[in-house]
């Protein structure tokens, strides 16, 4: 009786078939039945075998599994790895090509005079004088704004914010060279506007397709440690570096 708890190996396909067909010796049949009492796996297989309508076909399927499973299984996995690799490579390879104009457009925004401290309390006269120019600027009538700003700067050459509006207005009407001159002057003249001047100078170089100059300017701005553009600047610099020469 002790042997009733002795484990035995699972049944082979041949054993299962022979048992089902009653082809086993009494001893062999005994061993199979002892095993079946304990083994749900073989029991389940026997039940499946009894339902089989074409044993030959089933045996063929199992043989094909045996012969092919390593290769098929490995192939599936290798194919999956290759597919993922190819997809990643494609994403890298076919990522949208950057161009100067698109980078410029994604970062350029016309600054509004209301956002900046316009009024210099020490110079109320200059403040009054610049208003028509700023009104034109805000209407986006940049040509009129340029004419009015020119007159204003003749009268008040030390009204530094006017250089920024003038630079932007020039940029808007397509005079990038003049815009660069005004931004550069502003950079030199007024530390308060250094960051803004440098930022728009970078963007103007981009608009002109001068990636190297834009990069130099952006690096200089980064090195200055300014905080106004510290979030956007690293992204912009990264994109500039990806631009074609």
């Amino acid at each position: 009786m002790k042997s009733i708890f002795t484990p035995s190996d699972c049944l082979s396909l041949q054993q299962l078939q022979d048992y089902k067909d009653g082809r086993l010796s009494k001893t062999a049949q005994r061993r199979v039945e002892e095993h079946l009492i304990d083994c749900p796996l073989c029991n389940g297989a026997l039940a499946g075998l009894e339902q089989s309508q074409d044993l030959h076909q089933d045996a063929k399927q199992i043989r094909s599994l045996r012969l092919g499973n390593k290769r098929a299984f490995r192939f599936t996995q290798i194919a999956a790895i290759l597919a993922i690799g190819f997809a990643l490579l494609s994403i890298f390879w076919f990522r949208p090509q950057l161009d100067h104009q698109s980078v410029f457009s994604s970062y350029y925004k016309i600054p509004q005079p209301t956002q900046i401290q316009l009024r210099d309390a020490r110079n109320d006269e200059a403040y009054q004088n610049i208003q028509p120019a700023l009104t034109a600027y805000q209407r986006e009538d940049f040509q009129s704004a340029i004419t009015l700003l020119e007159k204003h700067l003749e009268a008040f050459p030390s009204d530094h914010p006017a250089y920024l509006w003038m630079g932007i207005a020039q940029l808007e009407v397509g005079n990038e060279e003049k815009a660069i001159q005004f931004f550069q002057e502003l950079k030199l003249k007024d530390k308060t506007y250094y960051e803004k001047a440098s930022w728009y100078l970078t963007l103007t170089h981009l608009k002109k397709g001068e990636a190297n100059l834009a990069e130099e300017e952006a690096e200089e701005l980064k090195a200055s440690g300014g905080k106004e553009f510290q979030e956007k600047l690293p992204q912009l610099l990264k994109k500039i570096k990806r631009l074609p020469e």
Partner: protein
Amino acid sequence: MSLRWLKPKKGLANWSDEQLLRAFQKTGEDQYFFTLIERYSHLIYFNCKQYLSQEEDCKDMVMTIVEKVYERCPKADISYFRSWLYSVIRNQCISHIRAQNRQSQPNPNWEKNIETVSIPNFVEEESHAYGFSDEAIQSALQELDPLQRECLQLFYFEGKSYKEISQQTSYSLKEVKSYLQNGKRKLKILLEGIEHDKS
């Protein structure tokens, strides 16, 4: 991902399931896994056949099960591989049928099979179940359901086959199998209880 299965080690066929399983869990080398799973490929296939009537469906299900087993094996806490494998097969087949039976034509016997196929644990799952005394076994037998006891006595004491027991008792073959399986499982539980009380 290792490709070392291309050079399988000699002699793996003689390794036990548990040795192969531990080696696969430890090294991740596929040769251990495939040696192990190939032992059971026909059993996996025909277990699936209980639930799926078409050969191609069975084959697909076998591949799905092999993949599941391959994924789960490295991290699963498996004491006895074939017992664990059976539960994976059964769960996979049943969830597949539940998902598909509205659309496809399932094997008409599958529901019946789910109900009637019992899932006894393997006896070897408790290694200390081998060394019970005859007295303990006889005593435990008395506590069994009479039908279970009758079938176990006819099978183990009188050496009768399932068919002979069925003819002698007029229980169906299915009933005989069920009494034997459930009776033996209960017997083991009773014997373990006796051993536990002694200690």
